[in-house]
Protein backbone atom coordinates (compact mmCIF):
# COMPACT_ATOMS: atom_id res chain seq x y z
CA UNK A 1 0.00 0.00 0.00
CA UNK A 2 1.24 3.46 -0.84
CA UNK A 3 2.03 5.69 2.14
CA UNK A 4 -0.22 8.60 1.18
CA UNK A 5 -3.31 6.36 1.44
CA UNK A 6 -3.15 6.73 5.23
CA UNK A 7 -4.64 10.21 4.64
CA UNK A 8 -7.77 8.71 3.05
CA UNK A 9 -10.72 6.85 4.51
CA UNK A 10 -10.17 3.49 2.82
CA UNK A 11 -13.51 2.12 4.03
CA UNK A 12 -15.34 4.68 1.88
CA UNK A 13 -13.55 3.73 -1.35
CA UNK A 14 -14.32 3.23 -4.23
CA UNK A 15 -15.31 6.83 -4.87
CA UNK A 16 -18.77 7.75 -6.14
CA UNK A 17 -17.44 9.53 -9.23
CA UNK A 18 -17.82 8.31 -12.83
CA UNK A 19 -15.06 6.12 -14.31
CA UNK A 20 -12.13 8.25 -15.50
CA UNK A 21 -13.16 11.36 -13.56
CA UNK A 22 -10.38 13.85 -12.80
CA UNK A 23 -11.61 14.48 -9.24
CA UNK A 24 -9.82 11.35 -8.03
CA UNK A 25 -6.56 12.63 -9.48
CA UNK A 26 -6.93 15.95 -7.63
CA UNK A 27 -7.64 14.13 -4.34
CA UNK A 28 -4.57 11.98 -4.99
CA UNK A 29 -2.38 15.01 -5.76
CA UNK A 30 -3.52 16.81 -2.59
CA UNK A 31 -3.01 13.70 -0.43
CA UNK A 32 0.47 13.13 -1.86
CA UNK A 33 1.40 16.81 -1.43
CA UNK A 34 0.22 16.77 2.19
CA UNK A 35 2.09 13.53 2.79
CA UNK A 36 5.33 14.89 1.29
CA UNK A 37 5.08 18.09 3.35
CA UNK A 38 4.50 15.92 6.46
CA UNK A 39 1.48 18.00 7.46
CA UNK A 40 -0.06 17.24 10.83
CA UNK A 41 -3.24 15.21 10.37
CA UNK A 42 -4.80 16.59 13.55
CA UNK A 43 -4.07 20.17 12.57
CA UNK A 44 -5.68 20.28 9.15
CA UNK A 45 -9.27 20.91 8.11
CA UNK A 46 -10.73 20.36 4.65
CA UNK A 47 -13.88 22.24 3.66
CA UNK A 48 -15.90 21.53 0.54
CA UNK A 49 -19.13 22.76 -0.96
CA UNK A 50 -21.77 21.07 -3.06
CA UNK A 51 -21.14 19.36 -6.37
CA UNK A 52 -19.25 16.37 -7.65
CA UNK A 53 -16.06 17.60 -6.05
CA UNK A 54 -17.85 18.46 -2.82
CA UNK A 55 -17.77 14.74 -2.08
CA UNK A 56 -14.00 14.74 -1.87
CA UNK A 57 -13.86 16.16 1.67
CA UNK A 58 -15.51 12.98 2.94
CA UNK A 59 -12.72 10.77 1.61
CA UNK A 60 -9.99 12.43 3.66
CA UNK A 61 -9.16 10.91 7.02
CA UNK A 62 -9.09 14.36 8.64
CA UNK A 63 -11.53 16.80 10.16
CA UNK A 64 -13.66 17.81 7.19
CA UNK A 65 -16.89 19.68 6.53
CA UNK A 66 -19.28 19.35 3.60
CA UNK A 67 -21.01 22.73 3.74
CA UNK A 68 -23.86 24.57 2.01
CA UNK A 69 -23.79 25.32 -1.69
CA UNK A 70 -21.26 28.05 -2.43
CA UNK A 71 -20.41 28.74 1.21
CA UNK A 72 -17.19 26.75 1.51
CA UNK A 73 -14.97 29.85 1.70
CA UNK A 74 -16.90 31.70 4.48
CA UNK A 75 -16.96 28.51 6.59
CA UNK A 76 -13.22 28.07 6.06
CA UNK A 77 -12.61 31.70 6.99
CA UNK A 78 -14.65 31.20 10.15
CA UNK A 79 -12.62 28.15 11.14
CA UNK A 80 -9.35 29.98 10.53
CA UNK A 81 -10.48 33.03 12.50
CA UNK A 82 -11.65 30.94 15.46
CA UNK A 83 -8.47 28.85 15.59
CA UNK A 84 -5.57 30.41 13.63
CA UNK A 85 -3.29 27.40 14.35
CA UNK A 86 -5.24 25.16 11.95
CA UNK A 87 -4.33 24.68 8.30
CA UNK A 88 -7.55 25.23 6.38
CA UNK A 89 -7.98 23.93 2.84
CA UNK A 90 -11.01 24.52 0.62
CA UNK A 91 -11.44 21.82 -2.02
CA UNK A 92 -14.40 22.43 -4.26
CA UNK A 93 -15.60 22.72 -7.83
CA UNK A 94 -16.07 25.61 -10.23
CA UNK A 95 -19.86 25.65 -9.95
CA UNK A 96 -19.58 25.98 -6.21
CA UNK A 97 -16.72 28.47 -5.89
CA UNK A 98 -17.13 30.64 -8.98
CA UNK A 99 -20.87 30.58 -9.71
CA UNK A 100 -22.89 30.63 -6.50
CA UNK A 101 -19.91 31.40 -4.25
CA UNK A 102 -18.25 33.96 -6.50
CA UNK A 103 -19.06 36.81 -4.14
CA UNK A 104 -17.29 35.06 -1.26
CA UNK A 105 -14.18 34.52 -3.36
CA UNK A 106 -14.08 38.24 -4.09
CA UNK A 107 -14.13 39.16 -0.41
CA UNK A 108 -11.90 36.37 0.87
CA UNK A 109 -9.19 37.51 -1.52
CA UNK A 110 -9.68 41.08 -0.30
CA UNK A 111 -9.44 40.06 3.37
CA UNK A 112 -6.34 37.90 2.70
CA UNK A 113 -7.29 35.19 5.20
CA UNK A 114 -4.62 32.50 5.28
CA UNK A 115 -6.56 29.69 3.57
CA UNK A 116 -5.75 27.58 0.53
CA UNK A 117 -8.49 27.30 -2.08
CA UNK A 118 -8.26 24.49 -4.64
CA UNK A 119 -10.84 24.96 -7.37
CA UNK A 120 -11.40 21.93 -9.60
CA UNK A 121 -12.57 23.41 -12.88
CA UNK A 122 -14.30 20.85 -15.10
CA UNK A 123 -16.13 23.58 -17.08
CA UNK A 124 -19.62 22.20 -16.39
CA UNK A 125 -22.25 21.53 -13.71
CA UNK A 126 -21.49 17.81 -13.68
CA UNK A 127 -23.68 16.51 -10.87
CA UNK A 128 -26.97 17.91 -12.20
CA UNK A 129 -26.44 16.50 -15.69
CA UNK A 130 -24.09 18.74 -17.64
CA UNK A 131 -25.62 22.23 -17.75
CA UNK A 132 -23.54 25.25 -18.78
CA UNK A 133 -21.66 26.85 -15.87
CA UNK A 134 -19.83 30.23 -15.78
CA UNK A 135 -16.63 28.42 -16.82
CA UNK A 136 -18.11 26.75 -19.93
CA UNK A 137 -16.24 27.96 -23.02
CA UNK A 138 -17.91 30.02 -25.73
CA UNK A 139 -19.92 28.00 -28.30
CA UNK A 140 -19.70 24.77 -26.27
CA UNK A 141 -22.70 22.46 -26.58
CA UNK A 142 -24.13 21.36 -23.24
CA UNK A 143 -27.45 20.05 -21.91
CA UNK A 144 -28.77 23.59 -21.35
CA UNK A 145 -27.15 25.20 -24.42
CA UNK A 146 -27.87 22.80 -27.32
CA UNK A 147 -27.01 25.44 -29.94
CA UNK A 148 -23.74 26.49 -28.32
CA UNK A 149 -22.96 28.62 -25.28
CA UNK A 150 -23.58 32.32 -25.98
CA UNK A 151 -21.45 33.80 -23.23
CA UNK A 152 -17.68 33.82 -22.69
CA UNK A 153 -16.19 32.07 -19.67
CA UNK A 154 -15.27 33.77 -16.40
CA UNK A 155 -11.61 34.64 -15.72
CA UNK A 156 -10.71 34.32 -12.02
CA UNK A 157 -7.08 35.28 -12.29
CA UNK A 158 -7.53 39.12 -12.16
CA UNK A 159 -9.83 38.81 -9.12
CA UNK A 160 -7.21 36.92 -7.13
CA UNK A 161 -4.22 38.90 -8.41
CA UNK A 162 -5.87 42.29 -7.75
CA UNK A 163 -5.06 41.84 -4.06
CA UNK A 164 -1.56 40.41 -4.63
CA UNK A 165 -2.50 36.88 -3.64
CA UNK A 166 -1.00 33.67 -5.01
CA UNK A 167 -2.74 32.39 -8.11
CA UNK A 168 -1.79 29.09 -9.71
CA UNK A 169 -3.16 27.07 -12.57
CA UNK A 170 -2.48 23.47 -13.45
CA UNK A 171 -4.16 20.50 -15.10
CA UNK A 172 -4.71 16.88 -14.15
CA UNK A 173 -2.36 15.83 -16.96
CA UNK A 174 0.58 17.76 -15.44
CA UNK A 175 0.38 15.71 -12.26
CA UNK A 176 3.81 16.52 -10.78
CA UNK A 177 3.34 20.21 -11.57
CA UNK A 178 -0.06 20.07 -9.88
CA UNK A 179 1.53 18.58 -6.78
CA UNK A 180 4.26 21.25 -6.72
CA UNK A 181 1.75 24.05 -7.14
CA UNK A 182 -0.45 22.67 -4.34
CA UNK A 183 2.61 22.48 -2.08
CA UNK A 184 3.44 26.10 -2.88
CA UNK A 185 -0.12 27.16 -2.08
CA UNK A 186 -0.16 25.19 1.19
CA UNK A 187 3.07 26.87 2.32
CA UNK A 188 1.87 30.36 1.36
CA UNK A 189 1.10 32.66 4.30
CA UNK A 190 -1.77 34.57 2.66
CA UNK A 191 -4.83 33.72 0.60
CA UNK A 192 -3.85 31.33 -2.19
CA UNK A 193 -5.91 30.04 -5.07
CA UNK A 194 -5.17 26.99 -7.25
CA UNK A 195 -7.26 26.42 -10.35
CA UNK A 196 -7.04 22.82 -11.59
CA UNK A 197 -8.35 22.10 -15.07
CA UNK A 198 -10.05 18.73 -14.80
CA UNK A 199 -11.95 16.42 -17.12
CA UNK A 200 -15.65 15.60 -17.04
CA UNK A 201 -16.37 12.95 -19.64
CA UNK A 202 -20.00 12.06 -18.84
CA UNK A 203 -21.23 15.62 -18.52
CA UNK A 204 -19.10 17.64 -20.90
CA UNK A 205 -16.79 15.44 -22.98
CA UNK A 206 -19.44 13.26 -24.62
CA UNK A 207 -21.29 16.24 -26.09
CA UNK A 208 -18.02 17.93 -27.08
CA UNK A 209 -17.12 14.94 -29.26
CA UNK A 210 -14.58 13.10 -27.14
CA UNK A 211 -14.62 9.29 -27.20
CA UNK A 212 -12.75 8.59 -23.94
CA UNK A 213 -11.60 10.51 -20.82
CA UNK A 214 -8.04 9.84 -22.02
CA UNK A 215 -8.57 12.16 -25.01
CA UNK A 216 -9.62 15.07 -22.77
CA UNK A 217 -6.57 14.54 -20.56
CA UNK A 218 -4.26 14.43 -23.60
CA UNK A 219 -5.88 17.65 -24.86
CA UNK A 220 -4.57 19.34 -21.70
CA UNK A 221 -1.08 18.26 -22.77
CA UNK A 222 -1.59 19.76 -26.22
CA UNK A 223 -3.25 23.01 -25.15
CA UNK A 224 -1.29 24.13 -22.07
CA UNK A 225 2.31 25.35 -21.91
CA UNK A 226 4.49 25.87 -18.86
CA UNK A 227 5.03 29.49 -17.78
CA UNK A 228 8.50 30.37 -16.41
CA UNK A 229 7.91 33.92 -15.18
CA UNK A 230 6.25 34.25 -11.79
CA UNK A 231 5.68 38.02 -11.78
CA UNK A 232 3.29 38.57 -14.68
CA UNK A 233 -0.15 37.26 -15.48
CA UNK A 234 -0.61 33.79 -16.93
CA UNK A 235 -1.92 33.68 -20.47
CA UNK A 236 -5.05 31.70 -21.24
CA UNK A 237 -3.15 28.59 -22.34
CA UNK A 238 -0.44 28.65 -19.68
CA UNK A 239 0.03 26.75 -16.44
CA UNK A 240 2.18 27.96 -13.58
CA UNK A 241 1.90 30.25 -10.58
CA UNK A 242 1.92 34.02 -10.12
CA UNK A 243 2.78 35.97 -6.99
CA UNK A 244 3.34 39.68 -7.48
Amino acid at each position, binding site marked *: *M*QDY*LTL*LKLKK*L*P*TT*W*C*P*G*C*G*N*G*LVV*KALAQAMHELKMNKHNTVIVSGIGCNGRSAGYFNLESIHTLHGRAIPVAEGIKTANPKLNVIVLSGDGDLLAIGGNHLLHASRRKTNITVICVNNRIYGMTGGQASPTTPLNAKTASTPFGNEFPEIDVQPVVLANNNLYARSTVYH*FDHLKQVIKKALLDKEFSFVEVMSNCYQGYGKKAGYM*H*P*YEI*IMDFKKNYNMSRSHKKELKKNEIGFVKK
Partner: protein
Amino acid sequence: MKKKFKVLINNKWCKCCSLCIKFCPVKNLTMTEQGVKDSGKCIGCKLCERYCPDFAIEVQEIKK
Protein backbone atom coordinates in the same frame (compact mmCIF):
# COMPACT_ATOMS: atom_id res chain seq x y z
CA MET B 1 20.35 -7.47 -14.80
CA LYS B 2 17.10 -5.92 -15.96
CA LYS B 3 14.68 -4.91 -13.22
CA LYS B 4 11.30 -6.62 -13.18
CA PHE B 5 8.03 -5.12 -12.02
CA LYS B 6 4.55 -6.34 -11.25
CA VAL B 7 1.32 -4.32 -11.37
CA LEU B 8 -0.97 -4.87 -8.40
CA ILE B 9 -4.59 -4.00 -9.18
CA ASN B 10 -7.21 -3.61 -6.48
CA ASN B 11 -10.30 -4.90 -8.27
CA LYS B 12 -12.61 -3.71 -5.49
CA TRP B 13 -11.76 -0.07 -6.24
CA CYS B 14 -11.23 -0.34 -10.03
CA LYS B 15 -14.07 1.05 -12.17
CA CYS B 16 -12.62 -0.18 -15.51
CA CYS B 17 -12.23 3.33 -16.94
CA SER B 18 -9.22 1.93 -18.92
CA LEU B 19 -7.12 5.08 -18.45
CA CYS B 20 -4.20 2.87 -17.34
CA ILE B 21 -4.49 0.78 -20.52
CA LYS B 22 -4.39 3.90 -22.70
CA PHE B 23 -1.44 5.40 -20.82
CA CYS B 24 0.71 2.23 -20.78
CA PRO B 25 3.56 2.67 -23.31
CA VAL B 26 4.27 -1.08 -23.71
CA LYS B 27 0.65 -2.31 -23.76
CA ASN B 28 1.22 -4.42 -20.68
CA LEU B 29 -2.29 -4.05 -19.26
CA THR B 30 -5.32 -5.65 -20.90
CA MET B 31 -9.04 -5.55 -20.15
CA THR B 32 -10.69 -8.88 -19.34
CA GLU B 33 -14.06 -9.83 -17.93
CA GLN B 34 -12.56 -9.98 -14.45
CA GLY B 35 -11.08 -6.48 -14.80
CA VAL B 36 -7.67 -5.13 -15.76
CA LYS B 37 -4.90 -7.76 -16.02
CA ASP B 38 -1.11 -7.52 -15.91
CA SER B 39 0.62 -9.53 -18.64
CA GLY B 40 4.16 -9.35 -17.26
CA LYS B 41 5.79 -6.87 -19.64
CA CYS B 42 5.93 -3.98 -17.14
CA ILE B 43 8.96 -1.65 -17.44
CA GLY B 44 8.18 0.32 -14.27
CA CYS B 45 7.34 3.76 -15.68
CA LYS B 46 4.45 3.98 -13.17
CA LEU B 47 2.23 6.02 -15.51
CA CYS B 48 -0.74 3.76 -14.70
CA GLU B 49 -0.17 4.24 -10.97
CA ARG B 50 0.04 8.00 -11.40
CA TYR B 51 -3.05 8.45 -13.58
CA CYS B 52 -5.36 5.96 -11.87
CA PRO B 53 -8.14 8.18 -10.46
CA ASP B 54 -9.37 5.45 -8.12
CA PHE B 55 -6.12 4.70 -6.21
CA ALA B 56 -6.41 1.10 -7.44
CA ILE B 57 -2.96 0.50 -8.98
CA GLU B 58 0.41 -0.02 -7.35
CA VAL B 59 3.58 -0.94 -9.24
CA GLN B 60 6.09 -3.02 -7.27
CA GLU B 61 9.59 -4.14 -8.12
CA ILE B 62 10.09 -7.92 -8.03
CA LYS B 63 13.07 -8.62 -5.79
CA LYS B 64 14.88 -11.93 -5.98
